């Protein structure tokens, strides 16, 4: 086993590790590109080799060796158990009720887990036009539960969304670079802190008065194996991209 420097790791790495740990082996996951895909592939590379990854491009059981840069990367299709059409992936598989966990990101989230990925500012004359809904509304509505991954800032964790793109009822946990929020009695509650993060740090980064679970946990740092696996997950041609 190679030696991995575990003393230093980034907040993004901690976030990926914390999210990956929440996936159990064999779970069927509907995964978006970016942070969710990184976490799901980390789970597959460590404790959950039989996690089934579904991407909205129609690839079922994708087993990429490199991190895909888009949901349609060729490696997703070539490594998948099967590739189906987009109407089928949303109709038969997602809406059909076969997915355990949906894995989403967003630009804004509120205390109920509702998500905004549409606009910042007014819809008709937005300050920032975001990409839009994509698969998020139905992923959150149809998966047994939904995990959200977002960097924890006041701009993202807001008292009131500028636009409600995706209803939050199905969001059971939010993994951030500071800790993990879990739904308690309908409200996202700070349930776990990453190493060296305080409740005050989390509150400061949250735009509403953050509830703290009575049994607040301290998450363990990434293990050497986790970091090694995570760092081995590189995009197919990172050189070109960087």
């Amino acid at each position, binding site marked *: 086993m190679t030696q991995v420097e575990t003393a230093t790791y980034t907040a993004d790495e901690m976030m990926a590790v914390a999210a990956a740990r929440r996936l159990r082996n064999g779970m069927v996951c509907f995964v978006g590109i970016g942070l969710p895909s990184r976490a799901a592939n980390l789970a597959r590379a460590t404790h959950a080799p039989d996690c089934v990854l579904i991407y909205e491009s129609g690839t079922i059981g994708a087993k990429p060796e490199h991190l895909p*840069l888009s949901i*349609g990367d060729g490696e997703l299709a070539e490594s998948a158990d099967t590739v189906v059409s987009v109407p089928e992936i949303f109709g038969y598989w997602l809406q059909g009720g076969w997915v355990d966990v949906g894995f989403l990101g967003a630009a804004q989230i509120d205390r109920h887990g509702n998500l905004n990925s549409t606009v910042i500012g007014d819809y008709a004359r937005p300050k920032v036009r975001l990409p839009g809904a994509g698969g998020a509304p139905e992923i959150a509505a149809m998966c047994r539960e939904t995990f959200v991954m977002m960097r924890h800032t006041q701009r993202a964790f807001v008292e009131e969304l500028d636009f*409600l793109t995706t209803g939050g009822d199905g969001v059971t946990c939010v993994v951030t670079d500071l800790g993990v929020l879990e739904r308690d009695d309908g409200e996202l509650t700070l349930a776990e802190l990453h190493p060296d993060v305080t409740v005050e740090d989390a509150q400061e980064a949250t735009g509403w008065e953050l509830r703290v679970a009575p049994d607040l946990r301290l998450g363990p740092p990434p293990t050497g194996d986790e970091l090694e696996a995570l760092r081995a997950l590189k995009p197919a041609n990172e050189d070109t991209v960087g």
Partner: protein
Amino acid sequence: MAEIVPLAEAVNELVHDGDTVALEGFTHLIPHAAGHEVIRQERRDLTLVRMTPDVIYDQLIGMDCASKLVFSWGGNPGVGSLHRLRDAVENDWPAPLELEEHSHAGMAAAYAAGASNLPFGLVRGYEGTDLAARTRVAWITSPFDGEEVAAVPAIRPDVGIVHAQQADEAGNVQLWGISGIQKEVVLGSRRSIVTVEEVVPRFEPRPNAVFLPGWAITAVAVAPGGAHPSYALGYYERDNGFYVRWDEISRDRDRFQEWMRRYVLEREPSIA
């Protein structure tokens, strides 16, 4: 039966000002060459339809081809924003752009309804979101059990345009890998153009392949590399670097226009 014609001729004959045009491709086989031809031929006032408008739609919008966009996710995949799309929506440059936006599931159902010659498609969604008030959606109560589901109007473009790996001499088309919504677009459009990497004597049967018979296609045009910077499985890979560079190129109006002049307007029909 599809005719195999030059791309410029296909676009000239089949795409008209004011048309509703869907150039589809779900992260694979995106018809860039056809999009560039639409730009070169200066089509105006188009309603552009696509689930995942990315770089080629950014270019069409920035070059003032479109007055409306129907979509469900508009971004530069793995990179960030589409600056030309944002400039149109946020600052009306080069012209105001009307938006009709959906979720992927809603838009997939709408395309499938179009291909099925149905007036609308059904989806569990939209309820409780702000999207519902901003798009074309209605609620239908099941006559059998009283359950409510959302209805979205069928998408039936005037022209559907997709890229595929191969055609044969008879104008039949085969594509493989991620096939997205391409079959629905071709079957649901009044007219269709399929650009292909090459014409082959006969198709090799392949897993996960989609076959489109020539009699269901209006025109086939040969455009090698016609998906670039997207990819064509079995032919070339995605040019991820281009998507990153596009972020810089497209941020500035002048730089964008200069790039379009140099790599699209002043080129013969081929890839940029």
